């Protein structure tokens, strides 16, 4: 496929800010996203579409919960754990939240070190992020196992409205899938960073195109999005 050659006539003039900037960028008869590469713009647009998918899941959950006449199971008790003889509500979910937030923190720092071309620190931070992500998925698997053992099914559960199970498995299952894909994505990019692909501008195996440290940021966008979705799931499904 032909790569579109974009002509940049020397130093580009200063771009307008504010609303005039939006109008100027969008009506410029060129590309709308001026200083953003296509890779990054397309990741944002993919994330936007993913936002709609998760919105639909949360909306269907809201509709099911609002329209049922059967009481909704209390998530505070459903997800409680007994640790050391003490009964702590929702503790597992709280720990999972902190783990995912920590992984977002290490990811943000990995992006930063990537742009500083610090190969080793970037790769290590990405692998730490992947480890946090894998831990999160592991705890989710534990949570699923526990609930299934207690008799939660997509069509019934011992505590109340039957839609609880279907909403739970659908929403957390889809989110867990995203985390799993993210972990694989992280390991793949971390390997490239570690090998120094972006320092020697080695060409990609599939694409035959040069890679740049920007891929760490694009990868980071995906990972932060996974964390972002969890913020909403945590609020609406577990806390509400």
């Amino acid at each position: 496929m032909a790569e579109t050659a974009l002509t940049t006539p020397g130093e580009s003039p200063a771009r307008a800010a504010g609303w005039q900037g939006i109008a100027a960028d969008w009506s410029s008869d060129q590309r709308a996203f001026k200083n953003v590469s296509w890779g990054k713009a397309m990741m944002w647009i993919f994330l936007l579409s993913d936002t709609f998918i998760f919105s639909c899941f949360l909306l269907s959950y809201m509709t099911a919960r609002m329209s049922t006449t059967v009481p909704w199971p209390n998530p505070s008790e459903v997800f409680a754990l007994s640790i050391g003889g003490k009964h702590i509500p929702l503790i597992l979910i709280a720990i999972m939240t902190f783990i995912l937030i920590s992984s977002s923190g290490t990811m943000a720092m990995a992006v930063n070190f990537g742009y500083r071309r610090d190969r080793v620190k970037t790769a290590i931070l990405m692998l730490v992020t992947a480890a946090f992500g894998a831990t999160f998925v592991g705890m989710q698997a534990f949570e699923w196992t526990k609930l299934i053992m207690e008799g939660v099914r997509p069509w019934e559960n011992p505590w109340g409205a039957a839609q609880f199970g279907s909403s739970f498995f659908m929403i957390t299952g889809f989110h867990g899938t995203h985390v799993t894909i993210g972990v694989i994505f992280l390991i793949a990019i971390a390997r490239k960073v570690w090998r120094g692909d972006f320092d020697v501008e080695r060409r990609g195996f599939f694409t035959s195109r040069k890679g740049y440290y920007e891929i760490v940021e694009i990868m980071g966008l995906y990972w932060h999005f996974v964390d972002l979705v969890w913020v909403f799931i945590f609020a609406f499904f577990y806390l509400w």
Partner: protein
Amino acid sequence: MTNVAVIDGQQPSLQTHAHDAIAAGTAHAKGQQHPIKLYLVVWGWLFVLSTCSYLVDYFGLHGYLRWSLILLFMVLKAGLIVAVFMHMAWERLALAYAILLPPVLVLVFVAIMVFESEYTHLIRVLFFASPT
């Protein structure tokens, strides 16, 4: 179109350089160098906000107080992640609005479904709920 491809494939021309420079986002990379401290501070705030929203459940707050606090902490966390971790605060408005406005419009969908489920609930109560 094919012409460009041939030039690209055979020798590193001026065009490939221009393309690579754009792909690398050379103009952009400068804007993304923030001190590590910024990320650590945001990380800390996310921990604080998560703890707060957990405490809402731990202390068993109920009703509008609970819901408004949950929404407040949720919006603050989401805002911090998008603005700082995802660098949206430093992007041009053309991108920020293109990405952030459509999800806000989902609220219209939410409003529609609230009406819909209120109606369904009413019908179920009127016709299906067992008389007590």
